[in-house]
């Protein structure tokens, strides 16, 4: 394994696998599962926003399309889970392929607005097409059987899926395609001069990102078993962008850290204070002021500065200390 990100991911997955054993109850386990689901959704936003530099404000549409498709296929048409899941993800990939054609005609601020508009269109359909989506009253799914019925099984499923997608994104980021994506982000004109098809690289990333958001949508349904137009709303899209920015744009684990922060604040802090939206705002303000590059890279930078600071303080005494440790048997 050459990729250092993958090694870290492996270690983290093993640590995360122990989480159900240490958490005190099913409520905390469901919070941990939520972190994984929203984390995966943030990973999909990060793929397009972090690696390609195109911030999308309509990603909840893909989450919702897969969620609605999954719910409708299993409840109304009675498809089995193994067939409904790929169909739902496929549908959100198809939606991504279609929306990409429209949205990727632009970049920057216009891209932001177009994705916002596309997201609102899908929200409008979910809200208005009552015969299909049951409007604001939403669709509930019956309880699942087997592995999915208990919280621990669902947690491990989400862990495996999120871990798998994260590994995929990490490998992608290290691959030639990933490198060209980051090239397109930093120097689109130069990449174009070098003979790269900028549009096609962006399109590939956008469709892949829609697919990952679709997978997150299926996990969302497995967890909540209820979907209504709120799931497709601008709030959900913008929260995902906030998670990515808070955790660290364009980093492997940043989105998960951001998702953990938002989910914990929403669910744990609100038990202690009524003013939790204010608290959320203050924490984002803190992040922007103190670690504008995001929590994860910011923490790394602060550690480094602190380390360098300590090293200069300690001065020459630190150097002779090292050989002592290397005592051989």
């Amino acid at each position: 394994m050459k990729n250092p990100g993958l090694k870290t991911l492996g270690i983290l997955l093993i640590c995360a696998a122990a989480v159900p054993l240490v958490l005190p109850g099913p409520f905390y386990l469901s919070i941990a599962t939520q972190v994984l689901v929203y984390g995966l959704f943030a990973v999909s936003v990060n793929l397009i926003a972090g690696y390609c530099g195109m911030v999308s404000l309509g990603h909840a549409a893909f989450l919702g399309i897969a969620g609605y498709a999954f719910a409708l296929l299993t409840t109304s048409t009675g498809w089995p889970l193994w067939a409904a899941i790929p169909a739902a993800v496929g549908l959100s990939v198809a939606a991504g392929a279609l929306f990409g054609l429209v949205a990727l005609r632009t970049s920057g601020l216009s891209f932001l607005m177009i994705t916002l508009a596309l997201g609102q269109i899908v929200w409008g359909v979910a809200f208005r097409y009552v015969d299909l989506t049951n409007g604001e009253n939403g669709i509930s799914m019956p309880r699942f059987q087997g592995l999915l019925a208990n919280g621990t099984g669902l947690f491990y499923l989400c862990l495996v899926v999120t871990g798998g997608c994260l590994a995929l994104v990490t490998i992608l980021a290290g691959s030639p395609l990933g490198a060209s994506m980051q090239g397109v982000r930093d120097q689109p004109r130069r990449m174009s001069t070098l003979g790269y098809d900028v549009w096609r690289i962006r399109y590939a990333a956008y469709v892949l990102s829609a697919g990952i958001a679709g997978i997150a949508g299926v996990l969302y349904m497995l967890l909540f078993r209820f979907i209504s137009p709120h799931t497709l709303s601008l709030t959900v899209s913008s929260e995902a962008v906030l998670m990515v920015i808070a955790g660290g744009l364009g980093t492997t684990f940043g989105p998960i850290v951001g998702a953990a922060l938002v989910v914990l604040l929403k669910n744990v802090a609100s038990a202690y204070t009524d003013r939790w939206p204010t608290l959320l705002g203050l924490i984002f303000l803190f992040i922007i002021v103190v670690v504008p590059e995001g929590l994860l890279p910011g923490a790394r930078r602060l550690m480094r500065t602190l380390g360098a600071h300590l090293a200069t303080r300690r001065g020459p005494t630190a150097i002779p200390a090292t050989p002592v440790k290397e005592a051989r048997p």
Partner: protein
Amino acid sequence: MISRRGFLGATAAAVSYGALPAMAQQQPIRIGMLTIKSGALSAGGRQMEDGFRLFLRERAERIAGRPVEFIVADTGGQPALAKTRAQELVQRSGVQVVVGPVAAFEALAINDYLQEAEVPFLCCSAAAEDLTQRRQNPWFVRTSSTSAQPCHPLGDYVARELKYKKIVAIADDFAFGQEQTSGFQRTFEAAGGTLVKKLWAPLNVADYGSYISQIGEPDAVFAAFAGANGLRFLRQYSEYGLKGKIPLVGSMTTVDEGVLHSMGDEAIGIISAGWYSAALPGEANERFVAALRKQTGVDPGFYSEGAYSAGLALEHALKAVDGKIEDKQAFMNALRKVDIKDDPRGPWRLDSYGNPIENIYIRKTERRDGRLMNTVIKTYENVSQFWTYKPESFLAAPVYSRNEPTKL
């Protein structure tokens, strides 16, 4: 919040319940409330909490001889968060009954979970028809009404007594507004009237001008709004000069007491229907209104009275089982059989679907003693959610929506 030690103590006591019934009786009853404290619907959430807290204070925080622990959770008006909050109340705080939530989509999002967890669910606001119709949960009862329950008699009254023939409806474009309008349309048209047009205004619309200009010249306008939207619509209706020209009839929440105090002359003369009015005569209501007015400065309305009734229902059921809420099935059976005589809104009992059979009041908004009031002008007694229709045929039809009963 309960402390960790308190929680452990409660759990330990619950475990030893079989051995020491006398001691368990002194353990607190834990009641959880799901409300909204932030966002557009927070006013309703606050009134709901006020209503329930008033009830608890009047009982000195004791029901059926047992102390009460009251835990409030904020859903932020988001269904996914509502479900997590419900899980938190049940699994972490160990509540024995859930009261609330404000909005129908929240209730629908948590209904399945509470059914699986077998937690009694006392809904005091969310009016979605299907909760007590096509999506029954044996652990669910409601103390408010279905959306259309007050609108059925209103449609009948408007057609037969006010003799309006042509009406234009304008409503919030979400399930509550749609169900209210459909219920009104059904009985109004059955009594010979015609609903010529339905106008749907988005929930967060900034300006009603473009909708008001589409009204045309009907005999009257039916308005179904929730929250502060009624306030804004009525103000613009009067600014556009339609007040006094085309009379208004409204649903309960359009002129709810919770917002009525912010209204002016534009509200005067509106005919509405609801299962409560702060102007109802009777000693129980006068005491309730005075107490809540003293506490919050606002008259009770839909949300606070619904929550207060939930408290009364809880008390009746708990007294029937000697406070033993731990026997969930017996408690639930008692809850479904409550028959309340001393409620501020008048007597009510639950039908076999868990929805109140209650009086529906036709009200007229007037100014008395410098205050706007919904004076009761006619009472329809013991109205059920099915109005005069047979439950079986009512339930065989699809649920009320934007296009049901008829497309317009």
